[in-house]
């Protein structure tokens, strides 16, 4: 019988029309497109490096401006400072065994904590959000985009840290008779402890930002351990008053050493009597913060690379779809 039975078996007639599975044959040789760009590779590379530095610095400045103009985000940072000031104004009494006001110890500890928070809470949150929105992917699609992004973020973090410290210590000194470094040595210590402290937590924060799933979960996952460390690292009250096991655990993490280093910068030398070791242990501070910085960099570089590599349009749309399903986000 002629023809194919129509109804039950559409496959039988399938693809009789146009169905060549082959696309366009590639007849031309592939080895053509080397052109002008390849002529002076060294010069071109130097030019693009310069460009990504310039773009990165520009980007950092613009992001900082956006941050300063965003009341919601700014209030988050300002509230931290206000809480620290309120706490300091309510605290009376001296650090046990010294003439140093308790409020000074807390303010030094809070300064360390705010640096800690910028690196391990604010930065991962920014990274996760921008990863999810496609910022990272857009920069990956742009020549020199990823280096510029890292430069901009470094600038932003340093500016945030500097701004927070100036705001907290300045306001504390003016309003609640807060501590300020004594002499050039004290300022120098403040500078290097802050810088090394940031270096210890920022790469770590970047690594966390590279692996956390989404901004909301990210916040929940990071906030808890961070708060726990705030209360166990001797930032709020002397470390010596805590059980020794808690002391030992807290001593693994950078916050304890950042707080101790900042106390050495901000409190009078006599206050070291209240330290667990009876001294500021500055070499140890430098060593442990330095170790965290190295470990953080070693961790962050492959994780960030992986995060950037894994981003693609389909992952963006996948997340978009999920967000659409949960009904939270419009296009």
């Amino acid at each position: 019988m002629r023809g194919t039975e129509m109804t039950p078996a559409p496959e039988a007639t399938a693809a009789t029309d146009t169905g060549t599975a082959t696309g366009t044959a590639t007849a031309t040789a592939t080895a053509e497109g080397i052109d002008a760009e390849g002529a002076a590779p060294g010069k071109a590379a130097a030019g693009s490096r310069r460009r990504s530095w310039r773009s990165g610095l520009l980007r950092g400045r613009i992001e900082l401006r956006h941050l300063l103009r965003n009341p919601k985000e700014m209030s988050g940072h300002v509230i931290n400072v206000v809480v620290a000031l309120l706490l300091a104004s309510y605290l009376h009494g001296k650090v046990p065994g010294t003439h140093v006001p308790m409020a000074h110890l807390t303010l030094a500890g809070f300064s360390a904590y705010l640096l800690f928070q910028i690196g391990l809470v604010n930065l991962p949150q920014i990274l996760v959000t921008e990863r999810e929105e496609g910022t990272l992917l857009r920069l990956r699609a742009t020549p020199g985009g990823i280096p510029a992004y890292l430069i901009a973020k470094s600038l932003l973090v340093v500016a945030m840290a500097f701004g927070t410290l100036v705001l907290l210590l300045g306001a504390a000194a003016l309003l609640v008779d807060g501590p300020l470094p004594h002499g050039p040595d004290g300022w120098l210590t403040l500078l290097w402890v802050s810088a090394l402290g940031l270096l210890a937590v920022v790469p770590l924060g970047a690594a966390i930002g590279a692996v956390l799933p989404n901004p909301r979960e990210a916040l929940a996952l990071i906030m808890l351990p961070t708060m726990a460390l705030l209360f166990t690292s001797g930032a709020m009250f002397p470390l010596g008053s805590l059980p020794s096991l808690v002391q030992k655990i807290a001593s693994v993490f950078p916050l304890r050493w950042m707080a101790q280093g900042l106390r050495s910068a901000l409190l009078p030398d006599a206050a070291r009597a209240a330290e667990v070791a009876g001294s500021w242990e500055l070499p140890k501070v430098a060593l442990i913060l330095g170790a965290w910085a190295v470990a953080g960099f070693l961790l962050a570089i492959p994780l960030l690379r992986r995060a950037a590599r894994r981003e693609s349009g389909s992952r963006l749309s996948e997340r978009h779809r999920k967000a659409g399903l949960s009904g939270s986000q419009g296009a």
Partner: protein
Amino acid sequence: MTTTEHPTTTAAASTPGAAPGSGGAREGVVQVRDLRMSYGGATVLHGIDLEIHRGEIFALLGPNGAGKTTTVEILEGFRQRSAGEVRVLGTDPARGDDAWRGRVGLVLQYWRDHRRWQVAELLAHFATYYPHPRDPSELLALVGLTKQAGRQVGQLSGGQRRRLDVALAIVGRPEILFLDEPTTGFDPEARRDFHDLVERLARDEGVTILLTTHDLAEAERLADRIAMLVNGRIRICGTPAELARRAAAQAEVRWTAPDGTARQERTADPSQLVWELHQETGGPIADLEVRRPTLEDTYLHMVHQDDGHGDGGIAGDGTGAGAGAGSGADAPEGKERAA
């Protein structure tokens, strides 16, 4: 699947006014040979061949899950392929450096980034990454966003946002632009505006464009050439006119056999078939119908036919040799050539 000499390759080289400075020889801006992609055990691309010429608008048309986005992401250098040869502007995208990136522009489906930035500020910023950027304000005029220059990116409508994405993608004067499902979710007016923009880019700016779409009308409207990608295979490729001709080359003949069953057959020579049917049945043919399918019929047919295998976008069989689609597609080739 071997690379067969295809009739459409040469015929497609007729885009007027394109290829500035390339002389007579057509340069393959995108060259893909036997591209394969598998995730785990599932194969999503079964050996794709593509060649896109300088200055043309090329549409990769196919249903959701056909492998369009995967293909584009491999060309963009965002995804590692399993096998095959890929060159974009003469470079393997998997090894594309910054200089290469600067010559490639791309627009993704769901970019929601930089929402706090002002439109003009963002465009001016991205201009700084390129050695010879376009003028940002001219570019805003080109994509029709001059009035929105001071707005925050997050406040743009879907269509405006996508046009900004195009502006960002072309601010560095790329030679090729990838648009992945650029008009998904657009209202008709936004869609028309976007189509006009794409045509202007190709015609006036000489940008080579590869766009993916599941909308045949969009592909026909915009593309110099269309490749239909179904279930990880390019099933047909050519200019819209060629495709329409080839779709119509095979007439569909339907009739009812003496035993009462409905029958159909596709043939290049319906007259001959009907004549033979007459001979066989020795009388009038019941419910005889001869029809030339449109391109849309062909497209829907291919999509539907692959759905019939029940495996959506991912074919379970890596080689495709035993699959109905593979053998069914290869068999009639001779017949089609003869036509």
